């Protein structure tokens, strides 16, 4: 009986595990904007998984996080942060830039 119960419990866990995987909060990665530069300018994230990117803008001026490759676009006001969900991504490099300072604010996401 005990073994039967345990098997039942394991089966339930097994069935529910995909839902747990979906409901689990995606891993978080942080990025900073300082003097119109992204720090770090390359951020490594796991491939094939949705991740939560938190971008802190330490400059007093607004910036827009933009990436054609990631299909993302978001204004981040001065001295504030923004949350951007990205992925799942195939392994590779995905450049992004600050649209308000596109000559200096350059970076890339490396999915691996």
């Amino acid at each position, binding site marked *: 009986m005990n073994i039967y119960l345990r098997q039942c419990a394991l089966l339930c866990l097994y069935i529910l595990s995909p839902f747990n995987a979906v409901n689990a909060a995606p891993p978080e990665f942080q990025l900073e904007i300082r003097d119109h530069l992204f720090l770090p300018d390359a951020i490594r994230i796991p491939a094939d998984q949705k991740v939560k990117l938190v971008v802190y803008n330490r400059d007093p001026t*607004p910036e827009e996080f933009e990436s054609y490759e990631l*299909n993302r676009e978001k204004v981040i006001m001065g001295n504030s942060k923004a949350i951007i*969900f990205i992925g799942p991504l195939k392994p590779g490099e995905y450049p992004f830039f600050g649209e308000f300072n596109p000559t200096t604010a350059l970076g890339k996401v490396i999915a691996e």
Partner: protein
Amino acid sequence: MLLSSVILVLREVLEAALLFSLLMALSVRLRISLRWVLVALVAGTLGAAICGFNIDRISELYDGVGQEVLNAALQFGIFLLLCGVGVTAVLRVRGFAVPLQLLPVLMAMCVALAITREGSEIMIYLSGFLQIGDQWAAVLTGSVIGAGIGVSVGAVFYFAMLTLQPRLAAVVGAGLISLIAAGMTLQATELLIQADWLPADYPLWDSSAILSEQSVAGQLLYALVGYEATPTALQLAVYLAAVLAILGAAALAACWRSADRVQP
């Protein structure tokens, strides 16, 4: 700095300008007074200022994705209004007794929402440089040039639409309104994916090697038909459903029989 400003402002202005020109051309064809244009400009600028100056508060809503939700709502609103414009225009052409002010009101609301969306971003951009002050002249010059190019492209498009044969203009106009409207839903879907409100997925294809979204043609197609180099299945499905919905609504209006019909 000058060139960055030109490009940024041009990109924002272009989208609203093409929609604006298309609806203005439709107005002229239907002999509707263009007074709504002024109303739309004023309302849109006000809307852009309100959104732009409250963006920090808006961004914090819904656990930090308020910006995405607001922009998606604006774009979905434009889609619905364009559906309304399409149906009303068809009924009017067929001689139904639709309220005279309905079409210009719908068009004004549509353009006002588009200006709110694109204009708020320009205002945020400019406000950043107002704080620093040293690059102000270059940024302002660049913005004026960018806006000028955007408006000029819109003007060329407007006159091109007016020189077309009436039948061809109706087909091209209806097609473009449908595709612009569908493009809005595609962008709204993308924003809600970014906010994690809709499920994320791998893109279905990647056509950026053939036509980059960053190229001039890519930008124009983005503004006109919602071109997206790496759409997900959900985005494509929403886009196609939107095209079917607006064309279906217009087709229904074209076939509608009613006692309300007056002699054309």
